[in-house]
């Protein structure tokens, strides 16, 4: 509980925080983990890897037909060349939205997610509510995210696993003809690549 008066001693961390400290101390003493390496992992996912990576790929798919085809058929070697290969992204499948189908991604087992393209999943992706309901009632979930699909448009829900991760390719918004890949990437939000949003409309 936070309080302002003088502390005779240091603020005691929470029970799980102390258990993690114990774990880290033990594993470090045994030489199984290296605290510097742990800091690097945290820095990478906190500051360097995020949805901007996936947005870059989607924008290029919108702009470059050969790249588009490659990503849908056999993306891994190209992603590797782009430096977008890594932990939890060894096998990525791109699922593309169309006028007939809207795709969305969930992990009903835990929280599998394409880290190299999107970073660490947001809290709601990891919640029981999303994990259970996106399979049972995807349209209701989409409505809560403010996505109203035209009647007759199918919704396909892709359940990620530890082996296969999915990334939704949203539809390119109208009025973006001639946009640079950089300008297009700015319209591709994290949620649009999970499938709980559409790509943003360009500002008039």
């Amino acid at each position, binding site marked *: 509980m936070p309080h302002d008066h*003088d*502390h*005779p*001693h*240091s*603020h*005691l*961390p*929470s029970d*799980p*925080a*102390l*258990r*993690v*400290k*114990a*774990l*880290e*101390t*033990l*594993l470090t003493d*045994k030489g*199984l*983990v*290296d605290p510097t*390496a*742990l*800091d690097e*992992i*945290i820095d990478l*996912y*906190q500051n360097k890897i995020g*949805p901007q990576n996936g947005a870059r790929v989607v924008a290029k798919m919108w702009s470059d037909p050969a790249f588009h085809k490659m990503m849908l058929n056999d993306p891994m070697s190209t992603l590797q060349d782009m430096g977008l290969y890594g*932990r*939890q992204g060894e096998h990525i499948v791109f699922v593309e939205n169309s006028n007939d189908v809207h795709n969305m991604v969930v992990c009903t*087992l*835990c*929280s*599998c997610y394409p880290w190299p393209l999107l*970073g*660490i*999943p*947001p*809290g*709601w*992706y*990891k*919640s*029981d*509510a*999303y994990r259970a*309901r996106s399979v049972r009632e995807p349209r209701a*979930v989409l409505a*809560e*995210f*403010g996505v109203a699909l035209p009647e007759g448009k199918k919704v396909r829900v892709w359940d990620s*696993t*530890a082996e296969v991760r999915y990334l939704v390719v949203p539809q390119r918004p109208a009025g973006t003809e001639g946009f640079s890949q950089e300008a297009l990437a700015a319209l591709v939000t994290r*949620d649009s690549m999970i499938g709980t*949003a559409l790509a943003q409309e360009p500002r008039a």
Partner: protein
Amino acid sequence: MTRCGDKPEPAFSEPWHAQVFAITVALNEAGHFAWSDWAERFGATLKTHGLSKELDGGEDYFNAWLETLEGFLAETGLAEAGAMRQLKTAWTEAYLSTPHGMPVRLAEVG
């Protein structure tokens, strides 16, 4: 369910969430377990915890994560439960005996 939009939000809301995440990734990378085995165990813990309440994707999620990792490491002998309990007590004592504002260090054991 909370609508988060796309506002930048920290990947980890608590330092210990980041720490336990990094420990798990590092151990996997060093080949101590396969990620699919980890995901299976973690999924099972989430399922058990989810029986009694609807889990949020934050503190509940990382509590399940930590419990899974502790169990896994105890079972494989990488980190014995007794040693972890002792170190937790040692860290608690270190916090309680270090004056506020001073760096907290673990007393040398043995």
